[in-house]
């Protein structure tokens, strides 16, 4: 029944398009939200008749080799949450109905693709679904059909093609040495010592592709443009889930399949992670556009995740997955805040904004919560994941990297504080005296996400045991 995760969104898109009418246009977004809510529900409350049922609605004609282990479940939860938020923000930011309808359809298809990525057991199918998500992202980025959108989409396409080439090269090499593209076959083949060198090269190439998709330096260059020029609901999707599910998740899968990577791969991960953290943070300091700053911040946080993976221990893996989850929550929330700000004030330029918190209290307060979480202030969720990452680094004797990770938190704090100060605090900027708080539809998702951040932080030990530590089982 896991295949329903892919099939239901697909059939619902087909159904939505069979019936024309303005009613359909209106409910498309809500329908998408319903789908994501069902997905979240299925993960949070394990419904055994759903998960244990290995049958397939398409019967014997169509056998889909899908499996959902603990990592997939965490990813599915993230996908559900971020897509829900993206749809909700989209519902209230688009003006034309056809635009909303197209947006909803593309998001639901992307949802289907993302679910596919985390559920397949075959590396070539993984590639196919990564392409699905990529194509959907291309279209979504230029939804507004403005010059900036087209330019960013173009850059994203070019670099995505580069990523695809790297990944395909790697898949070819892996296919050659293992004879089959399923995860288990690769796992068996990787234990064979004669293939050692080719395996490492294959992993290295795949890593390059994953880095490009995930937005790590020096492959990150599409990210600031794409995430800042896209409509905000798409930025939420991109920054919150797409870079993780099409970049970091395949990387994690490959590393666990092939036994954790050898020394050189780990060193690459550590170095690239560190450089990404620093470059992303330093670049974010100098930005004047809210969304561009948030995009560079995503680059920086992806660096943290890769740094944690570079340790090669189970704690490192757990820390990486937990940080992915936290980042999807608070980055979505920060982008949603910027959507509210943009909608009410009409600008994203921080030099023109100021003192908004007096007029928009909810946005200001939740922005503070998101900021504290991303900087790693206890007892919010971000603190715990960063702590695990630093502990994992310490345990594997990478003291220098741990030190850099902690120092970068200071830079993170610096640019987020400057964002807060320039946008929300201080005197109200001229021309902005009459703005009001954003409508409920833009506030509710932000409040929900802020609540999730706080709750995950406070109930951390409980969540650690139930949700995060089982992820480590995939290493066995």
């Amino acid at each position: 029944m896991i295949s329903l995760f892919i099939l239901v969104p697909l059939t619902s898109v087909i159904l939505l398009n069979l019936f024309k009418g303005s009613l359909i246009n209106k409910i498309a977004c809500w329908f998408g939200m319903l789908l994501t809510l069902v997905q979240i529900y299925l993960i949070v409350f394990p419904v055994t008749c759903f998960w244990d049922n290995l049958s397939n609605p398409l019967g014997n004609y169509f056998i889909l080799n899908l499996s959902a282990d603990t990592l997939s479940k965490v990813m599915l939860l993230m996908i559900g949450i971020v897509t829900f938020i993206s749809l909700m923000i989209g519902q209230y930011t688009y003006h034309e109905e056809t635009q909303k309808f197209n947006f909803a359809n593309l998001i639901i298809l992307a949802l289907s693709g993302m679910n596919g990525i985390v559920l397949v057991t075959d590396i070539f199918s993984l590639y196919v679904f990564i392409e699905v998500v990529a194509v959907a992202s291309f279209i979504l980025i230029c939804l507004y059909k403005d010059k900036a959108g087209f330019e960013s989409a173009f850059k994203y396409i070019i670099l995505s093609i580069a990523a695809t080439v790297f990944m395909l090269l790697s898949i070819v090499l892996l296919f050659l040495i293992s004879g089959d593209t399923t995860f288990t076959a690769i796992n068996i083949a990787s234990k064979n010592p004669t293939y050692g060198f080719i395996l490492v090269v294959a992993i290295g190439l795949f890593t390059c592709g994953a880095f490009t998709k995930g937005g790590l330096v020096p492959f990150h260059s599409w990210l600031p443009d794409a995430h800042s020029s896209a409509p905000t609901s798409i930025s939420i999707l991109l920054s919150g889930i797409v870079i993780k599910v099409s970049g970091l998740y395949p990387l994690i899968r490959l590393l666990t399949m092939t036994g954790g990577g050898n020394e050189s791969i780990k060193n690459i991960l550590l170095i690239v992670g560190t450089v990404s953290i620093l470059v992303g943070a330093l670049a974010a300091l100098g930005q004047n556009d809210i969304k561009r700053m948030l995009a560079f911040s995503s680059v920086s946080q992806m660096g943290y995740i890769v740094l944690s993976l570079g340790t090669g221990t189970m704690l490192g893996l757990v820390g990486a997955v937990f940080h992915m989850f936290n980042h999807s929550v608070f980055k979505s929330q920060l982008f949603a805040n910027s959507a509210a700000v943009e909608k009410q004030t009409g600008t994203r330029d921080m030099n023109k904004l100021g003192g908004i918190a007096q007029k928009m209290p909810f946005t200001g307060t939740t922005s503070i919560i998101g900021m504290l979480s991303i900087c790693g202030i206890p007892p919010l969720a971000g603190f715990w994941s960063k702590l695990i990452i630093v502990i994992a680094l310490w345990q594997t004797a990478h003291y220098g990297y741990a030190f850099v990770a902690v120092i970068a938190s200071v830079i993170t704090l610096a640019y987020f504080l400057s964002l807060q100060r320039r946008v929300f605090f201080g005197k109200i900027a001229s021309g902005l005296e009459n703005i009001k708080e954003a409508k409920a539809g833009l506030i509710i998702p932000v409040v929900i996400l802020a609540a999730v951040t706080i709750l995950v932080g406070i109930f951390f030990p409980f969540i650690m045991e139930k949700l995060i530590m089982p992820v480590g089982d995939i290493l066995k």
Partner: protein
Amino acid sequence: MNYDLILLVIMMLAALMTVLSTRLLIAAIGLALTSVMITILMFKLKSPLAGVFELSICAGLITVIFISTISFVKPLTDKEIDERTKQRIKKYLALPILLILIGIILIFIIKPTTLQIPLAIQETNVRKILWDLRQVDLLGQVIILLVGVFGIVVLFRDVQKETNKK
């Protein structure tokens, strides 16, 4: 006589022609030529069905679509061509360096490997592979098709309305 290597070199030249030329028609023809080279290679590597797909779709259908679209486009004047070429020349400086580096890497990879590469799946029955073994990919293809449809709708529909208004 290693024919494969010659074919690969011709393919690389055709691809370079596609990317470097300033006239769209030449580029489209270069693309078709690249596909043809790949098709020949595929036939030599004993996968005729893949070669047939490649030829018919890439070298045939896509080239037809490209050329019919190009025929709608106004060609660049000579002055514009000169300006374009001057701007782009600088970017091509990296190309030879890149090629040499890739060559070095390939030498390092290919030489020391004495691995016995196992033969790939022996199935030559495309239908069986497509239908029995790769169903998930088919699902993915369906989804991509739908995404593509929506993409075209999003990108081109309003343009149609505008042209209709005119």
